[in-house]
């Protein structure tokens, strides 16, 4: 099932349907950004009812809702949001592997948030400054994402500095997810971004927080071969298939129904 580059006929719709607006929306880029937001939102939604403290039930849901809102706007630029979310096969998703990583413990979720929200804030900041098709969304979303990054940084500081156990867990999480960060800086067709500069800015921000927290920036491989991940090409991890199975099951069980 995972070897077809496109899913069911309707799943290949983005290439077939013309963008609704007059300006040309680069389909691959809309899917890349939209899928990142959709998938991370789903993972954060899995925390509901399981968070370590009530305030985090609210905070994680806030972030998940922001991301879902972004995903809906982005996917709707190039097709029907529900068809795209629920009827594509795994290989047609364009999100980076970082966002599909299972939640793990709270430290893993925070490390994932730190890496991703820092990237997303810089990315949206650049898109917001331009006049491309993603500029309107980016201008609104960059404020949301600034909050996401602040949330992740605050927790990285607390966990890095808090207790021996929290320090160990946070370091383990940063190291485990490090290999998924290289992929964030591979060029995405249609975004026209200087990914090297994006990476430089990202590295500066993440290093600063990690150092402030008394943690160590990981050094493992992250930009070559498999270590880079290949989500943008539709190559995902095993847990992602299960995530999609759960997410899509009900929708697919009632073809053509409206909800």
């Amino acid at each position, binding site marked *: 099932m995972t070897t077809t580059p496109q899913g069911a006929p309707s799943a290949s719709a983005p290439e077939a349907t013309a963008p609704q607006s007059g300006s040309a929306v680069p389909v691959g880029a809309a899917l890349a950004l939209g899928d990142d937001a959709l998938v991370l939102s789903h993972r954060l939604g899995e925390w509901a009812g399981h968070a370590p403290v009530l305030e985090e039930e609210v905070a994680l849901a806030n972030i998940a809702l922001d991301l879902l809102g972004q995903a809906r706007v982005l996917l709707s630029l190039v097709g029907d949001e529900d068809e795209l979310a629920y009827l594509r096969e795994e290989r047609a998703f364009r999100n980076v592997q970082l966002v599909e990583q299972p939640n793990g413990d709270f430290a893993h979720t925070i490390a994932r948030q730190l890496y991703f929200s820092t990237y997303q804030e810089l990315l949206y900041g650049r898109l917001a400054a331009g006049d491309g098709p993603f500029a309107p969304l980016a201008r609104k979303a960059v404020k949301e994402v600034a909050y996401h990054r602040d949330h992740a940084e605050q927790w990285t500081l607390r966990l890095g500095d*808090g207790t021996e156990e929290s320090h160990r867990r946070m370091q383990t999480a940063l190291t485990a997810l490090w290999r998924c960060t290289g992929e964030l800086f591979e060029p995405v067709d249609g975004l026209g971004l200087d990914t090297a500069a994006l990476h430089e800015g990202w590295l500066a921000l993440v290093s600063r927080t990690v150092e402030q927290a008394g943690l160590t920036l990981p050094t493992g491989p992250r930009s070559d071969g498999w270590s880079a991940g290949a989500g943008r090409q539709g190559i995902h991890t095993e847990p992602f298939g299960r995530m999609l199975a759960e997410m899509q099951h009900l929708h697919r069980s009632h073809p053509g129904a409206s909800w």
Partner: protein
Amino acid sequence: MTTTAPDTRGCEAVFDAALAADERIEPRDWMPDAYRATLVRQMAQHAHSEIIGMQPEANWITRAPSLRRKAILMAKVQDEAGHGLYLYSAAETLGTGRDELLDKLHSGRQKYSSIFNYPTLTWADVGAIGWLVDGAAITNQVPLCRCSYGPYARAMVRICKEESFHQRQGYELLLTLSRGTEAQHAMAQDAVNRWWWPSLMMFGPPDDESAHSAQSMAWKIKRHSNDELRRRFVDICVPQAESLGLTLPDPDLRWNEESGHHDFGPIDWDEFHEVLRGNGPCNDQRIGQRRRAHEEGAWVREAAAAHARKHGGTAREAQV
């Protein structure tokens, strides 16, 4: 309650006069110990219900069948967490902290609403909970906005506003299913069949068996009896079920011209008491998940507290 000391008697007169004049009692005001204890117990049980109530609905977040519904559901579950926060804070104004109350929930010394011990088996259950469970909660809670204890009453004003959103969203979800495919309609009817009777039980035992009612009414914590509120709820639901194109699972349900209310069939109080005793379908699951989340989160809370101590703050500040 100590009433012999003359100054206490004076205080009590002030308290009674405030109640009689329908004024609010505030945290710094003198109040009888039993009034305080009753409020803490009720607010705690209410707060616990909000956070346990997140579970049956969170059960469907990852499977919500459209992105729009997913956003609505996530926001709803988030609201319930917020309600928990307001209510634990309101209880804190009487000197009982959240940690202590959570301990009591986890050790089974305090309860939460039994309704959440039923499982959400299909997507339609999300709609049925919104329509019936949030609906019953509103019927119960709107009078609490006039409760004599200020912080509780004010928390309830905010909460009731949000609950009425939830109720409308649930109704709209069910309406969509009811008017959808045959399978969707059947799913909606099945959910209503399963949630109707437990919703009626949410109003508590009949008036003649209700342990705390009389005193709570005198203290203006409670404003209407269980049976009165239950009847009001049934009267609201019957026409709504009709508009939904769904039936309520009660052959005895009919309009009574004389009383001006609906008559309804007997409630299975044995089931109610069984669930209350811990033998409902999900009691162990719900409290188990709550305890697990709390235990697995202990290192996070400890880290936040330790970090705050190092930097001169409090643990609670660290968590926000």
